């Protein structure tokens, strides 16, 4: 596809949206780390006032985090709306174009209504739009615009879930909210990647063999996603550290979880935050998170070895090495979260780095597809090969991205 003159600007805008999303994840992580998710009891209002007019003087204590998280969320929503229109305007044709613009405008307009009912209705329609977009992705000539529209619909759902988590007082919604945040971040990063010059350059590289790398990267990324869900579940128990020591657990390789022991640790735990009591389930969850962390470390080391063995692509080798670096940082942050008795700042860094690890894995996976496509097709760059050949039994949604 020819480079449109505003391609660079769109790429920069996507990068800006991605960075703002990362900041939003950090701030959202801070809200849960500080245990202040309920500091503003109402939504979409803030202490009965319009969110955007809530006086700065009252941004104190937990309200500071929760309220600024809501404001930054609105900003990400707005950026995503602009980005979706941008992609849409470039690629959509005919009535579809106006339908898309109409949807974005309707969404923004309904947000202006600022009642819970309007948001829930909007999120319900958004869910249908997400499904429709996912459906269109499979066959559309320009899947990128559907990805962008999917991102916009997802951000509407995400905002509504964040609000419902507060008004319905359900930690389960918090876990879903945290998980969708990671996937949304990945999606925005994919949009930023495929609009980059780098993305074009990659397809023009010399042929490389990737072997089973694509499936390996995809699989490991999915394990990281699982790990992020586990992490979100741990955080939303509001029980603090279920296991306070590392590398051992209560001085053992595997801790006891009988009722007497649980009663003892709850009795002895002193913390001004007065967390919820630790349960046996919390300890199991915590230990599972550690085990999965170990396996991710092993898997990413394997990715580094496999990248060297199975492909001659310096790009994938370098990407896998950096991934391993990120995972190591993440492991140290995880341990530090324990050693610092779950300091809010370190726990939040752990969340944000987790998101980056997932995104890196996701981007590396689609890069592996991109590189391999060029090789396997054995054709001039930019030419789309037979889709069945490309997919190689792996989710075609991911593969369809590179056709931009």
């Amino acid at each position: 596809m020819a480079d449109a003159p505003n391609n660079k600007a769109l790429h920069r805008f996507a990068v800006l949206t991605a960075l703002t999303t990362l900041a939003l994840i950090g701030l959202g992580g801070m809200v849960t780390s500080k245990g202040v998710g309920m500091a503003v009891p109402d939504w979409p209002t803030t202490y009965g006032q319009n969110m955007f007019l809530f006086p700065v003087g009252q941004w104190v204590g937990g309200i500071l985090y929760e309220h600024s998280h809501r404001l930054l969320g609105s900003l990400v929503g707005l950026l995503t709306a602009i980005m979706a229109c941008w992609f849409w305007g470039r690629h959509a044709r005919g009535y579809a174009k106006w339908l898309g613009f109409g949807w974005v405008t309707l969404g923004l307009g309904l947000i202006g209504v600022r009642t819970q009912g309007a948001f829930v209705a909007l999120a319900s329609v958004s869910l249908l739009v997400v499904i429709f977009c996912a459906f269109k992705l499979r066959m559309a000539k320009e899947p990128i615009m559907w990805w962008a529209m999917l991102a916009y619909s997802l951000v509407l759902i995400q905002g509504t879930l964040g609000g419902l988590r507060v008004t319905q007082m359900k930690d389960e919604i918090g876990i879903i909210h945290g998980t969708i945040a990671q996937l949304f971040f990945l999606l925005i990063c994919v949009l930023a990647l495929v609009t980059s010059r780098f993305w074009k350059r990659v397809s023009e590289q010399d042929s490389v063999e990737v072997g089973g790398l694509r499936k390996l990267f995809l699989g490991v990324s999915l394990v990281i996603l699982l790990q992020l869900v586990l992490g979100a579940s741990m955080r939303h128990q509001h029980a603090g550290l279920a296991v306070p020591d590392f590398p051992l657990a209560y001085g053992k390789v595997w801790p006891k979880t009988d009722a007497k022991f649980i009663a003892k640790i709850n009795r002895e735990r002193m913390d001004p935050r007065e967390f919820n009591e630790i349960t046996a389930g919390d300890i199991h969850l915590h230990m599972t998170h550690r085990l999965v962390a170990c396996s991710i470390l092993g898997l990413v080391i394997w990715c580094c070895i496999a990248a060297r063995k199975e492909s001659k692509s310096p790009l994938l080798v370098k990407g896998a090495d950096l991934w391993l670096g990120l995972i190591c940082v993440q492991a140290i942050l995880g341990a530090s979260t324990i050693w610092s008795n779950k300091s809010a700042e370190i726990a939040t860094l752990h969340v944000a780095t987790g998101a980056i690890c997932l995104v890196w894995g996701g981007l590396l996976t689609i890069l592996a597809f991109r590189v391999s496509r060029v090789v396997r097709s054995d054709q001039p760059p930019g030419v789309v090969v037979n889709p069945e050949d490309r997919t190689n039994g792996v989710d075609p949604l991911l593969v369809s991205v590179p056709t931009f």
Partner: protein
Amino acid sequence: MKLFTKSLRAVDLVLVSRPLEYGNSQKTKREHMKNWLIAVAVMAAVASPLKAGDVTGKVSLEGDRPAELNLPLDPSCGAAFKKFNPGKKPKTRFYVSEKGGLGDVLVVINGIKGGKAPTKPHVIDQRGCEYLPYVSAAQLGQVIHVLNSDPALHNVHTQPREAGNAEKNLAQLPNGPAIKFDYQKAERFLKFKCDVHPWMYAYVSLVPHQYFAITKADGSFSVKDVPPGEYEIEAVHRKVHTGANYKGVKQKVKVSAAGGKADFTIKLQ
């Protein structure tokens, strides 16, 4: 009716020690009225637990209690705390203890019925970004009023465990009106918290009758007006007896018109 008049006459005889001629004069009529009222009062007194006694005692703490931790107050809360508690440091209140006693222990008589219905609300206040009292108890049916004496904004967030008691989260502006909670299920140490200030907590136990007390810092308590009988009495501490239903230490207590005595020892290992 005849019997009733007869008994009244008898009461008259006892109380005034002279027979009465009914309706003979205004004076005797008034006299009779007075005696009748006294009789009713006496009968009411016999029926009511006036002879009930107070169960008193002390909850002693055995073992070393861990040091309390500093509360991470923010500047505005720090100023409010100083105003309400001059010279005091904001600390956690896990193990309140003086003279070997253990404070904030719920002492409750189990399996007892009857007693008065509550008339007054149970009040807890937010002062200096702290809940006061930290641990308290209310009789089921007593409406819990949460006040805000602070110049700061709080949210009052309850976290009941008992099914049927609903979680609530409500905003409370500085010096705003009381927020009222009307919980219908008995529950021990129902948590009230503020998410604006994540160190602010209060625990209110909802007891299905009036026979309970919370120990003072020296561990002393007095369960008032317990009808004579033999009961099981339980002492529960929120932190020591943590777990599903907060099971405390129990013993038997005999209550007579003169009251009863029950001392507890709670061990910290």
